[in-house]
């Protein structure tokens, strides 16, 4: 790819900062100009968060806007739906199927939409959905959801596998490296979810 835009979305506290730094290091190692934009502070407290990852010859804006994202990497299903307008035509959603009820759903004011996969399809949006929570558990930590999802994303790029693992090593502390390598591999290797 000459350039690309990836948004990482989820619920504050799910590890989007590590994921964006991972991708940042990856694209820098491949010689790209890179800009990332992160969320810190109040929104991190269980709110909806969006992190932007941009790479190319020269990147000006640190943001990605509506219709510009090649990928939406979503740690939670509802968040993929929320940020759908950011996806460009022909872009792809890669999402964890985990559902975390937001406060208006918990308090019963609103309900969690149940047919999101179908809704994505009806709009002609490609969505690769994966139970990252189970896979992360299998790798040894439910906190590794972010890394499972990054493993999934790696399938859509033609880079040699070791490039990804090198980037992983740069952002993950040594004592958690093994779990994260496993999580990444599970996300990368697991067959796509069959149509239900």
């Amino acid at each position, binding site marked *: 790819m000459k350039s690309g835009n990836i948004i990482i979305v989820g*619920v*504050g*506290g799910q590890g989007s900062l590590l994921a*964006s*730094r991972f991708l*940042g*290091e990856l694209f*820098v190692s491949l010689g790209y*100009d*890179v*800009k*990332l*934009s*992160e*969320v*810190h*502070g*109040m*929104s*991190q*407290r*269980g*709110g*909806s968060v969006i992190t932007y990852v941009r790479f190319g010859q020269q*990147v*000006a*804006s*640190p*943001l990605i*806007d*509506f*219709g*510009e994202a090649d990928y939406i990497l979503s740690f939670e299903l*509802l*968040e993929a*739906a*929320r940020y*759908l*307008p*950011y*996806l*460009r*035509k022909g872009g792809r959603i890669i999402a964890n199927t985990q559902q*975390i009820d*937001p*406060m*208006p*759903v*918990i*308090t*019963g004011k609103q*309900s*969690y*939409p149940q047919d999101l996969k179908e*809704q994505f399809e009806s*709009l*002609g*949006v490609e969505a690769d959905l994966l139970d990252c*929570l189970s896979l992360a558990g299998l790798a040894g930590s*439910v906190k590794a959801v972010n890394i499972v999802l990054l493993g999934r994303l790696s399938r859509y790029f033609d880079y040699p596998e070791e490039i990804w693992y090198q980037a992983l090593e740069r952002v993950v502390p040594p004592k958690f490296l093994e779990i994260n390598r496993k999580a990444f591999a599970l996300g990368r290797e697991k067959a796509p979810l069959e149509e239900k």
Partner: protein
Amino acid sequence: MKKLLMGNEAVAQGLYEAGVAVVSSYPGTPSTEITECLAEHRDIYSEWAPNEKVALETAFGASLAGVRSFCAMKHVGLNVAADPLYTMSYTGVNAGLVIAVADDPGMHSSQNEQDSRHHAIASKVPMLEPADSDEALRFAKAAFELSEEYDTPVLLRMCTRIAHSRSIAEVGERKDVQPKPYHKEWTKYVMMPGPARVRHPIVEERTKKLSELGNSCDFNRVETGDPSLGIIASGTAYQYAKEVLGKNASYLKLGLVNPLPDRLILDFAKSVKRLVVIEELDPIIETHCTKLGLKVEGKNLFPLCGEFSQKLVAEKLGVPVPESVRLSDPVPERPPVMCPGCPHRGVFYTLSSLKLTVLGDIGCYTLGAAAPLNAIDTTLCMGASVSGLHGFNKASGASSAQKTVAVIGDSTFMHSGITGLVNISYNQSDSTVLILDNSITGMTGHQQNPSTGLDIHGDPAGKVDLEALCRAIGIDRVRVVDSYNLESVKKAVTEELAVSAPSVIICRRPCVLLKGVPKKAPLSVDSDKCRGCKSCMKLGCPAISFRDGKAHIDKTLCVGCSVCTQLCRFDAFLGKEEQLS
């Protein structure tokens, strides 16, 4: 060496390379990481001060003593530090003094959207504004030179999208800067009327020189493209304009945003057909252009409120934007919430169930205002809960004092709550203040404060004893409760409200996210016992949801705080032991 750095990391790196020796700040999003990164360098002195005013005065003292010093704060922090700033402009500095101030257009984590450039103009202090991490590093470094050459503190304006974005920056080595000797010079440093009258014209002369510097310095640059459209911008707005227009416009990119360079602006205006200023928040560059007699567009196109983006810039300048799709039904909102196991939750549940009027403050606990707790009535600024409560009670008398409280966190109390409590004690109102002591500065990401007993490095430090402090202020009724214990919180609040005397209730329990705070195993719900009465749902705990007529606990979120078990009349929540048996 090139490195991918967050804007705030880049500022810290630039300051470090420039030989900064003393750093004093109060945390505030989006400025906090600058000081945290500097603290990693043990060869320089860094600290968290109780508030921004103290921090800036500390940095000033260090500058006076002869070393390059620095202070960081968020935009509203500069209001607190404005008092020393405005007069420091007169005294100037000895060694360089740089102040980073981080604005928050779009209010990602702030109570207002003020534009710090007003402070730069009003205090007559030069202000630099970088547009990416590389500039953040270079500007931070150059700010010290500017400070020393022009004998002035220098403001470095950041904003959320520069502070919290990562881009590639050129990293260098630390410069060895020798301390400057301190000389007694009372006509420069004692700002009473006589000397200050001498200093003020010096400040005005300095501003003229700096404006002249702006015409030719590296902070400002012209990028020549299509002359039919000329854009004047700084910071993020420049990046959005470049993204949208590329070579289809010419740019005057400003880095020294106060004072503005008259001649450079006039020359640029002459070279283009249509002149547009793109700036987030207030029309400061635009107004300056108008004063120069230029025909300029700006806020007739762009909003005063909120954060900009490339889409906004494109739309306002008539450039097509890409198509996008959305779901037909609106997606449920996901506002920020208090974390599972947050010690504040039970306190707010109690205040809400007692139907009290609650004057709130700034911190994680501001989230107590949101549904379903809806416990907070006001949030203004750091410390306003305590002083506001006093005024509220003085105005409405006993009827108010028995059903109104203030809530303030430990760090916020240290910052600006103490003086309000002094007023309650001195002018005697029957006010009840709750200090929500979670033993950390929470919302900004866990910084130590004077009541935690640890310094910026986590090493042992002096510790302010909150109970003793409140008593010393003259509050005779000071009690401590466990924030997790709903019954004791309720008892304390009810009793203190009933008493005709000032009182302080310290609700104490460390933040559940703190390292070293033991987490218990997640609870589960015995679905046979759960009657679906939804009592527990009133807590607004993100770990509890309602599925198929019963409460359900998300085991990935629950930390076993057991506040919910105190609300359940049917013993439906099971701890680890009960789950095993």
